[in-house]
């Protein structure tokens, strides 16, 4: 059954890709419809209306996203079904190589990630029709967008369903290529082209690393199906090689530091609903790949791997959020925060690996659950935030925080929905972001149970880094909300922005916000639902997730830690409501409106507020060594002999150190090598004859 839903979702995605091709086929389709439906006047009139000049565009646009919605729904149902009954269904499709046809398999792990994919996808399908309308009149055809969106989604779903290395890689690369075309969709901007190139290049290298990782297993397992790979028995050295290759490959897609450089370039330049899918879902597919490879396919786990993952994850988390904090472009900021969240997920995975390798299965399971939960949460609120940013972009054509402000007055509905996303990504109770981070902390705090003292001291340190990260994340998103939505508008078009009109463009984010709230308040059922999954991977189910009843979350034991988000929400509502009643209802003192305090000078302007750059300045100074900051002050002078300075303008630009240290040298090296090689080809035929002459001599000398 769930397999059926999975196929349904894939087919629906491909269908929407096909439908997209029909953008400019109105006339043809009309003639076709007339030819077919001549018999039935009623249907004929319907068709006539659909294919009329006026309706066709809209009909086409909606059909695209309705199909995507079905795809999302199918994925969600399939995933839930599998998680419920924990069944493992396999099937073999007649595609692929003659001696290796496509193996399909859906198990709880895949099911969970199908859910992770399904929810944002449904939100996007609500959101899309309103968002892409403006593209219809642009120079870039909607057909390309729709086609590659469909392929992108289908690719991601197939990655989850693949049960042999070959199909996995096909789907994986399909996902990469399709998203590449989506990044390059508005290719008249040079930045987009550059980002797309970088993205595809790194995707390619990562993919090769993954292929090699599979190659190692296939060499020992003697086959390319996942069953064969599971059967491979490797010595620790080869296992570590495979693991590192896998970490590089999947980490590159997931955006771990320092191989994250493509991410903040590529995610912002894609159309926003695509950014939502890329940041919210695609990165999770990479996480899925890592989990599948490490927890499922590799037959052993070494604690060194856990340490490696833990360290890299912690680094990604803190660096990601530090860079996010310094961004002025909203979508770029969100992309960097994705690096941070993926880092957090990998910290949890690292903890889980360490515990599993040291035989603490239940704690390993706890870490894994925390990681999965955070992956889901990030998928939800990051998609929500990207859709919100897209809505702002759509209404005001503004991406830079420096020009925003006061949007809460202009677009109150969006502001309310966006606030939910902000609070949950800032990991504040009682929303979902907090639950997963709480679980991760709980996992880390059990580090005392590990034999080796080094690890015992390493784990708390990592968790402290995590604490720093979450605090910085709060800072970062307070900044975002405060600068974008609160205060006074910083530019004219923001001051006259209109709230989102299209119902779906609010409905999509609203759906996600609802999920955030729900998971935040009632995490227990979900975590219990993961039991089948953890049982499959670690052979262990969290013992007492709800030892005190369904209200309580007690991951380890009631005495160790407990958290009842529902009661927290209740309590806050009660206290807050009580105060409100006592303080407002009793004394009916209406607040008086007045000018804010201006030190008595008068005339506060929006230019006097703290800008986004100013807000993050202390952090910038405190963490100086992390950034490569380019600052400049330009003075506008006037008056006699331009002595008097009338205006000062301060520019600053924060560059990614990874970029300067890793990528640019590599590029230069390649060019130098190419030049060196080029010297060999002089163009003189006698030299060429010399080459073949000496090749011959050399070979003769070799063999005799």
């Amino acid at each position, binding site marked *: 059954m769930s397999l059926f839903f999975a196929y349904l979702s894939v087919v629906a995605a491909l269908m929407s890709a096909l439908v997209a091709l029909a953008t400019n086929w109105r006339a043809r389709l009309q003639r076709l419809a007339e030819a077919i439906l001549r018999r039935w006047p009623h249907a004929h009139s319907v068709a006539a209306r659909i294919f009329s000049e006026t309706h066709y565009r809209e009909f086409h646009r909606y059909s695209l996203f309705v199909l995507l919605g079905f795809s999302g729904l199918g994925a969600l149902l399939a995933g839930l079904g599998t998680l419920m009954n924990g069944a493992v269904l396999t099937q073999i499709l007649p595609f692929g190589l003659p001696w290796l046809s496509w193996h399909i398999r859906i198990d709880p792990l895949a099911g969970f990630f199908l859910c992770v994919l399904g929810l944002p996808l449904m939100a996007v399908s609500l959101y899309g029709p309103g968002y892409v309308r403006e593209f219809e009149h642009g120079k870039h055809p909607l057909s390309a967008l729709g086609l590659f969106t469909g392929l992108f989604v289908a690719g991601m779903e197939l990655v989850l369903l693949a049960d042999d290395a070959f199909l996995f890689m096909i789907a994986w690369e399909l996902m990469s290529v399709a998203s590449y075309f989506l990044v390059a969709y508005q290719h008249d901007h040079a930045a987009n082209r550059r980002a797309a190139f970088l993205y595809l290049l790194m995707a390619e290298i990562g993919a090769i690393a993954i292929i090699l990782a599979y190659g190692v297993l296939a060499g020992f397992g003697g086959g390319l199906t996942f069953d064969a790979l599971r059967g491979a028995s490797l010595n620790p050295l080869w296992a570590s090689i495979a693991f590192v290759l896998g970490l590089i490959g999947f980490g590159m897609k997931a955006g771990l530091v320092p191989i994250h450089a493509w991410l903040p370039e590529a995610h912002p330049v894609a159309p926003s609903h695509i950014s939502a899918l890329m940041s919210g879902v695609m990165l999770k597919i990479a996480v899925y790949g890592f989990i599948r490879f490490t927890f499922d396919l590799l037959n052993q786990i070494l604690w060194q791997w856990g340490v490696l993952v833990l360290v890299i994850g912690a680094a990604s988390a803190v660096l990601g959020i530090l860079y996010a904090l310094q961004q002025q472009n909203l979508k770029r900021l969100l992309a960097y925060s994705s690096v941070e969240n993926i880092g957090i997920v990998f910290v949890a995975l690292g903890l889980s690996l360490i515990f599993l390798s040291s035989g603490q299965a239940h704690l390993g399971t706890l870490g894994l659950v925390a990681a999965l939960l955070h992956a889901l949460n990030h998928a939800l609120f990051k998609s929500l935030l990207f859709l919100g940013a897209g809505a702002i972009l759509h209404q005001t054509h503004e991406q830079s925080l420096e020009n925003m402000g006061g949007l809460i007055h202009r677009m109150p509905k969006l502001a309310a929905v966006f606030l939910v996303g902000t609070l949950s990504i800032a990991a504040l109770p009682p929303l979902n972001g907090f639950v997963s981070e709480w679980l991760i902390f709980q996992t880390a705090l059990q580090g005392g149970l590990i034999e080796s*003292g080094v690890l015992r001291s390493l784990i708390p340190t990592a968790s402290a880094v995590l604490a720093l990260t979450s605090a910085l994340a709060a800072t970062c998103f307070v900044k975002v909300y405060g600068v974008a939505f609160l205060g006074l508008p910083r530019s004219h078009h923001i001051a006259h922005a209109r709230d989102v009109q299209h119902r779906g463009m609010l409905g999509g984010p609203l759906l996600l916000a609802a999920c955030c709230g729900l998971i935040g308040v009632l995490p227990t059922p979900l975590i219990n639902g993961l039991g089948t999954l953890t049982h499959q991977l670690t052979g262990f189910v969290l013992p007492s997730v709800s030892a005190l009843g369904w209200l309580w979350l007690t991951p380890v034991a009631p005495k160790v830690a407990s958290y*009842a988000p529902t009661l927290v929400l209740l309590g806050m509502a009660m206290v807050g409501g009580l105060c409100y009643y006592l303080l407002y209802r009793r004394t009916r003192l209406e607040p008086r409106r007045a000018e*804010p305090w201006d030190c008595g000078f008068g005339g506060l302007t929006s230019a006097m507020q703290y800008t986004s750059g100013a807000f993050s300045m202390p952090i910038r100074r405190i963490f100086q060594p992390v950034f490569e900051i380019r600052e400049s002050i330009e003075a506008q002078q006037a008056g006699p002999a331009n002595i008097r300075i009338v205006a000062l303008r301060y520019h600053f630009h924060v560059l990614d150190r990874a970029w300067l240290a890793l990528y640019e040298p590599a590029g230069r090296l390649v060019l130098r090598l190419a030049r060196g090689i080029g010297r060999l080809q002089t163009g003189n035929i006698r030299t060429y004859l010399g080459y073949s002459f000496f090749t011959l001599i050399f070979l003769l000398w070799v063999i005799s």
Partner: protein
Amino acid sequence: MAWLLAILETLLFVGAAPLLAGWIKRVKCRLQNRKAPSVFQPYRDLLKLYRKQPIAPHPASWIFRAAPYIVFASTVLAAAIVPLVAVDLPTSRIADIIVLVGFFALGRTFQVLAGMDIGTAFGGMGSSREMTISSLAEPAMLMAVFTLTMSAHTTNLSQAMNYVLDTGLVLRPSFVFALGGLILVAIAETGRIPVDNPATHLELTMIHEAMILEYSGRWLALIEWASQIKLMLYGVLIANIFFPWGIAQDFSLTTLGYGMAMIALKLAVLALVLALSEALFAKMRIFRVQEYLGFAYLLSVLGMLSHIILETAR
């Protein structure tokens, strides 16, 4: 019964907070040999503010109006889960110490948002500084807390206190370090000298005050009260985690009364220490706060390491 007791305790907590603030003020005045107001002055102030008509600046949105309630509510909730006079109250099961930090974060977030809602330089300045300081203080605090929880094997506050009570007086180097770290963090988080000066009226030096500059009337009352509760929260945390002796482990009236007396005593002493330090030190530059908090973090890490190296027999 237990629930009723828990609610009563919470009410007591909330009610006693201004008293502590008044007491600290009084001691400070004495130290600076000024004429001191009565210890009940804070109550009068709150009542006065409550009666006044609040003023909302023009750019303010609903966030500005909602923030005080959320701040107050989150603080009260935090107060509810910290054992004051008795351990094993049901409320302490609702949330553990990490959630406590979460509550603080929630309240802070809304206060900061409210500060930025007005669109003045002061609001932004205060918010930025507040977030910076807290983002440095939070890891330090968690590290300190983790030290405790790792030896107690629980993050649940009353469980931790039980653990300390059961083991009796043990001189743990880790606890000493953690205590130092937690005190430093507490000073920073509650906005006392040398990090922030609650009594200042020069906008440029304000942090906490700058954020709430626009508040008045009942809103201001709520926020002031919330910060008083927060101050007391930290006091109770330090007192009850590191010196839990005297706290009631069963709900008989005598033990409860004894516990109340004990906590009052401990808080009074802590208040004395705080007042003394505030009288002795001067406020420091904003960009030296990082060194201050870095030191707090260092203490906590040392605590953690000493716990691992010195205390676990393996």
